[in-house]
């Protein structure tokens, strides 16, 4: 199937998610689609798969202009999309998941579904058991089932969105072989949307790079990584000289840490962060840098290794009431034995024994309940310990993680201040937030709800709410959504903290920012952290190689 995109545009208000993109896809080839988050890849693929309609532009299918009313309409015309998060039904059986919306017959044909699943699975080397629940499978297996379904429904043109994120190496190998076979033997067309240059190099015949909604160019593979990185991040990478800073003693030490989540495993991280030092974490989004930051903040527990803040690990605190459930159990057991003895010696009737045990169960239950409440009140999570020991963490999700929607700036100030009093001193809180509103240049009033602030102002508000002095400051995209002047101002404030001895570790998708602001740089690629390089000794070329997953010297 031959597909041509002509001048596709998609505007969301002022934002130009896709700005005049024209591409041609020929059968029997694998195309890569590269670009940073927000470059417009997903929007373009949503348009091509019928999820969204373009603002303007034409899609030609074998020379004929088409429009898709829905994803299922696109699939009927031969275009199938494999979403990064498989669009399946975890609580259903694999066979049910396969049959859902498969045809318009009244009765479900389970034997046929199982046969097709097994048959197609065998053809591609997938091991599919149709009689288990989808939720018991790994992400890679769910992907395989979804792929089989799309092929069974006649997809000639496949879009795979970040298919290797979160799947095992073997599954990746199987997937790649399948993709090659589909293209070589069955003349299908595949688009691989990816962050990983390595995979694009390994698999694709041709790659298109998007940046800020525009097509930056197409390249035939093989093509040097540095050229692709240039296209993705722009040509104008520059470096300003910065004053080297005298660093003090070690604040944060990570020793051979392994951090594991459902999607990604980061292994063998070793690093040391000193007072007054700024460490920048570069890499394509989702390569593991965020996991490291969260682990350092005590939000994730490393599976292996240690993370030390000022020489001590973040463990949280066990409640002094941890024994209450055991007390409840012991009491109940004692009463049951006692009642049984009384009954067997004839001092109690059966009914009295039952009553006595029931009463004991009631008391034990009450002890358990009160105990659980006490435990949850008196124990301390590692993250709270992190905060108490002078840690600050600013997450990327502003309204999801950083701020509480529905509360005003003043109320946030009360929540953020280190000393908690039972009765709130509103006047003091208002004065304090007013000071910070001015200092951080926030367009808003103390009584403004945080969700009413613009994105940039929410960002500034999160930074304004940090306490000082801090021992360590962990930042995710600290200046995302800010204009150049505000970004400079924010970094000036970080510089002041740095002089107070705060160690800073930050993630940024902006290579300029990393090169300009860090003392040292670590690059993440697919869960692997590169060796840490001195900013003054590195080059854009080297970072490009590292981001692409090559461990260069």
């Amino acid at each position: 199937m031959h597909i041509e995109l002509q001048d596709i545009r998609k505007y969301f208000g002022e934002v130009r998610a896709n700005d005049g993109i024209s591409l041609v896809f020929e059968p029997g080839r694998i195309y890569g689609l590269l670009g940073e988050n927000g470059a417009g890849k997903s929007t373009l693929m949503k348009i091509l798969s019928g999820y969204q309609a373009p603002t303007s532009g034409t899609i030609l299918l074998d020379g004929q202009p088409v429009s898709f009313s829905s994803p299922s309409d696109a699939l009927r015309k031969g275009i199938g999309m494999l979403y990064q998060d498989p669009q399946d039904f975890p609580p259903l059986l694999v066979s049910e998941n396969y049959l859902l919306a498969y045809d318009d017959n009244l009765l479900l044909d389970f034997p046929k579904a199982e046969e097709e699943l097994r048959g197609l699975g065998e053809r591609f080397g997938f091991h599919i058991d149709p009689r288990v629940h989808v939720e018991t499978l790994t992400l890679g297996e769910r992907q395989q089932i979804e792929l089989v379904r799309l092929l069974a429904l006649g997809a000639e043109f496949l879009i795979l969105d970040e298919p290797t994120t979160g799947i095992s190496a073997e599954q990746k190998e199987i997937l790649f072989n399948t993709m090659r076979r589909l293209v070589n033997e069955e003349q299908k067309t595949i688009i691989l949307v990816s962050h990983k240059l390595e995979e694009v190099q390994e698999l694709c015949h041709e790659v298109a790079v998007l940046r800020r909604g525009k097509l930056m160019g197409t390249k035939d593979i093989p093509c040097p990584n540095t050229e692709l990185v240039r296209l993705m991040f722009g040509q104008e990478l520059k470096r300003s000289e910065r004053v080297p800073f005298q660093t003090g003693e070690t604040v944060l030490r990570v020793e051979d840490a392994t951090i594991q989540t459902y999607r990604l495993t980061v292994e063998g991280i070793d690093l040391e962060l000193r007072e007054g030092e700024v460490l920048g974490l570069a890499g394509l989004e989702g390569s593991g840098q965020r996991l490291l930051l969260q682990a350092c903040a005590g939000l994730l527990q490393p599976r292996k290794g240690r993370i030390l803040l000022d020489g001590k690990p973040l463990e949280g605190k066990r409640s002094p009431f941890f024994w209450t459930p055991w007390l409840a159990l012991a009491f109940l057991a004692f009463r049951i034995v006692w009642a049984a003895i009384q009954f067997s010696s004839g001092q109690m009737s059966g009914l009295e024994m039952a009553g006595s045990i029931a009463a004991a169960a009631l008391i034990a239950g009450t002890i358990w309940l009160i105990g659980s409440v006490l435990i949850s009140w008196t124990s301390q999570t590692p993250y709270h310990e992190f905060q108490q020991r002078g840690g600050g963490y600013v997450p990327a999700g502003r309204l999801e993680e950083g701020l509480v929607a529905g509360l005003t700036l003043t109320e946030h100030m009360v929540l953020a201040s280190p000393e908690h009093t039972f009765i709130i001193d509103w006047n003091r809180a208002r004065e304090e937030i007013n000071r910070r509103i001015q200092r951080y240049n926030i367009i808003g009033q103390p009584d403004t709800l945080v969700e009413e602030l613009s994105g940039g102002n929410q960002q500034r508000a999160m930074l304004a709410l940090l306490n000082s002095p801090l021992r360590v400051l962990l930042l995710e995209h600290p200046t995302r959504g800010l204009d150049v002047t505000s970004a400079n101002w924010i970094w000036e404030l970080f510089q002041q903290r740095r002089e107070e001895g705060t160690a800073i570790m930050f993630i940024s998708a902006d290579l300029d920012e990393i090169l300009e602001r860090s003392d040292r740089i670590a690059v993440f690629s697919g869960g692997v952290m590169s060796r840490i390089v001195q900013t003054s000794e590195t080059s854009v070329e080297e970072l490009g190689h590292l981001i692409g997953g090559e461990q260069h010297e």
Partner: protein
Amino acid sequence: MNDAQIIRLLASVIAQSAPLMLAVTGETITERAGVINLSLDGTMLLAAMSGFVVALKSSEALATRGIDGDLLPVLIGFGSAALIGATAALLVAWGSIRLKQDQVAIGFVLTLLLADIANFLGQNYTRMPGPSVKHLPIPFLRDIPIIGPIFFEHDLLIYLTFVIVGFSWWWMYRTQPGLRMRGVGERPESAFVRGVKVNQIRYAYTAIGGALVGLAGAAYSLDIKLGWSDNHILGIGWIALAIVIFGGWRPVRGALGAVLYGVTKTLATQLQQSFPEVPVVLFNTLQWLLMLGVLLLVGSNAIKRLVDIAPKPLQRPLARALRVAPPQALGQAFLED
């Protein structure tokens, strides 16, 4: 107690549980499509009242035209009750899907409102005799020892209940529309990608479930607990909601839950006769404690361990039978892009 008495007791448990089974099946269908309809209690009251009054009025009207017999009035009564149930349920769905309001909030307010409306509109019809469903044993089947007298010496409504429960199971697990309905309740965005019309399906199954709840209400006033009085069956709707959870959102297990509820209730009455010195209320709490215990047990690790020590070929069906999980998108409105 002799055998005949026990059989009679069980038969009455089945009959008493039938309306509850209908309500549980209806709400199970609604919730499996992803809509939580908390207006059950009020809906059932209003349906019971209007079912009774409509049947009464139409029997009077038909009598003046020389048409006698209860069958037609009773059918009209059930029809109006089903209509009321479907309308109340659609209100919840509409408030959620169109007005984007919270389903729980709408359901709560609606249940209080409908209960009061029922008492207000029904105040002139309390404690009146009226038409009722005719007793109709099934020939031949009734002669089967033990099973016959327990299951086949009832009336049409109760047989219909069995059929509805079985049909819902078949529809949900063996047909394409039923599978789509479950998909919509579990993950509407995936269903949407596959071309399923999510909100259309939700409206349809909410209405069908609501109609069954309406029938359940009328089943009380026209069959099981005849007539109408203030707050005639107050609380039954909440019990039905609890049994939906107990049944793990499955029709057959929900129906069994309704029977189990009837059994424990009867058991409580019997126990109370055996231990007259124990206060009545204590035995009434028993059924809830039992239900709570079973729920905790099913949700705990004990079941997982039990499955692990079971023989290999039994493990999978056992685990499947003991699964309890609410539909994942229950109570969440789906916004199409």
